[in-house]
């Protein structure tokens, strides 16, 4: 199997605070991984450091063999757009939505690269097939949507990009159980060939049996591969 992401010795944090302690982690092509752990133990920081969005970080992060990590002297987010263009998509906690844009415009933002821009109508259509409720909201302002619809828009924007690695941070956060299940079902239904997905989640039961691997996280360290977990 082909390795999509390989993290070695990654430490990261904000100012004097160290959140991640020398993490080693890898993602294979075609894998769907659940990253589980309590609040504040570094799940989001791990995802954000892949995108070069944390305060400071060092350690190697290789995406398809290309180094995207390392210590950086520039501010957070300087390299993020290049990493996105390489093919990593993150849906952050809190969705990072554009409140004054319509759903269609918002999705177009995901297809912002020159190539994708020409096919944005088809791609939008594909996303609407994944999240049917968005179809009738196409010209509604994102700021007026409900939490579940916003999450769909945010995930949809990530799906619009030409990504082969999707990092989904807490897709169920703040949603009613029924809606969070719908969002997760849509994610599980995505084709896996040539792609990989990491889902950070506090609610293990939502992922149980649906992911290839579960990785626990505690106090900034990965606590072993839990492997396939089936709760019933």
């Amino acid at each position: 199997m082909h390795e999509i992401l390989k993290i070695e010795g990654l430490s990261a944090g904000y100012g004097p605070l160290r959140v991640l302690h020398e993490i080693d982690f890898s993602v294979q092509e075609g894998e769907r991984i659940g990253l589980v752990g309590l609040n504040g133990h570094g799940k989001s920081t791990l995802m954000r450091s892949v995108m070069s969005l944390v305060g400071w970080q060092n350690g190697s992060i290789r995406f398809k063999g290309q180094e995207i990590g390392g210590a950086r002297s520039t501010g957070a987010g300087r390299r993020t757009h290049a990493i996105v263009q390489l093919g990593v998509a993150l849906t952050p906690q809190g969705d990072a939505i554009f409140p004054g844009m319509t759903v269609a415009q918002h999705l177009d933002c995901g297809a912002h690269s020159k190539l994708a821009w020409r096919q944005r109508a088809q791609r939008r259509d594909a996303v609407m097939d994944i999240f049917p409720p968005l179809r009738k909201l196409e010209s509604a302002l994102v700021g007026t949507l409900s939490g579940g619809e916003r999450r769909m828009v945010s995930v949809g924007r990530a799906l619009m990009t030409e990504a082969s690695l999707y990092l989904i941070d807490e897709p169920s956060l703040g949603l009613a159980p029924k809606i969070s299940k719908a969002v997760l079902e849509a994610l599980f239904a995505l084709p896996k060939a040539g792609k990989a997905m990491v889902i950070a989640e506090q609610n293990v039961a939502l992922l149980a049996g649906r992911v290839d691997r579960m990785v626990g996280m505690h106090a900034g360290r990965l606590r072993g591969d839990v492997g396939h977990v089936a709760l019933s």
Partner: protein
Amino acid sequence: MSTVTLIHGLNLAAIYGLMAIGISILWSSVGMINMAHGATFAASGYAAWQVSLIAQPLIAAWLGTGLDASIAMGATMIASGLGAGAIFGGLIFLLAYLPIHEKANFAVRSLIVTLAINLATVQLLLYFFGPRQRALPKIFGLGRTEILGIPIRNDQLGTIVATALLMLVVVIWLKRSRKGLEITAMMQNPEGAVLSGISVRWTALPVTMLTGALAGLAAILLSQTVFVSPTAGALPLIKGLTIALLGGLGSIPGAIMGAILIGFLEAIVGSISFLGQRYVLFSQFLFIITVLIIRPRGLGGLLDQTRESRNA
């Protein structure tokens, strides 16, 4: 309200609107209050004046003095104003954005840097051109045109029409084009923008150039009624800035509405015989302060919370 006051108000609203929209867009997308907007205004005025010195004899030799010649002259003036403004905007990007945009407290730092650029530019203009006022050629002609039975001075008509057209183009461009979508995304949520693959760093360049070009156009249009001088940018800067605040920084409709209100206020106060011009600034600031006390977000500000996350 007489029609003369009405037209005068619209004319002022157009010019202030150009300044205010520039300041507003720049603040919400790049996160910088551009105190050098006045310098852009003055420098564009001088650039256009220099171009007019060179272009006038050339155009006269080529097209004579007919209508063709004045249209060519007008187009040259507007193009040179827009161009000079865009170049100056790019300069501000290089000096006040690129070196410091990742440092802590960028909002305050850039305010100070752009203020320094403003002062330095005014002094440089004084050094090279002296305090003498210069007149730009009247690009819309001197006469009056009658529209719906109302005689309107050509320069005012030209200003209103040119501004309305340009603003329409800018608003449509921001909504429809890919670059415009990038800028809008950056205005509404910088983190969401980088996660969509938009480089905040390099999207700032077209924004500074666009807002510079708007200030350049404002300079050409205002110079149809007043002269070009090194300090000509101060008042438009102050008015643009306060109107941008009145409209709620970051809101284009708010800035347009604010510009119209302030433009009419100026025209009306100026035309009331016992108040007159000397009460114009007083009444404007009183109005703006009152509005901001009642509605601190300004007339249309809706993006405050997405803006704050950035410099925290």
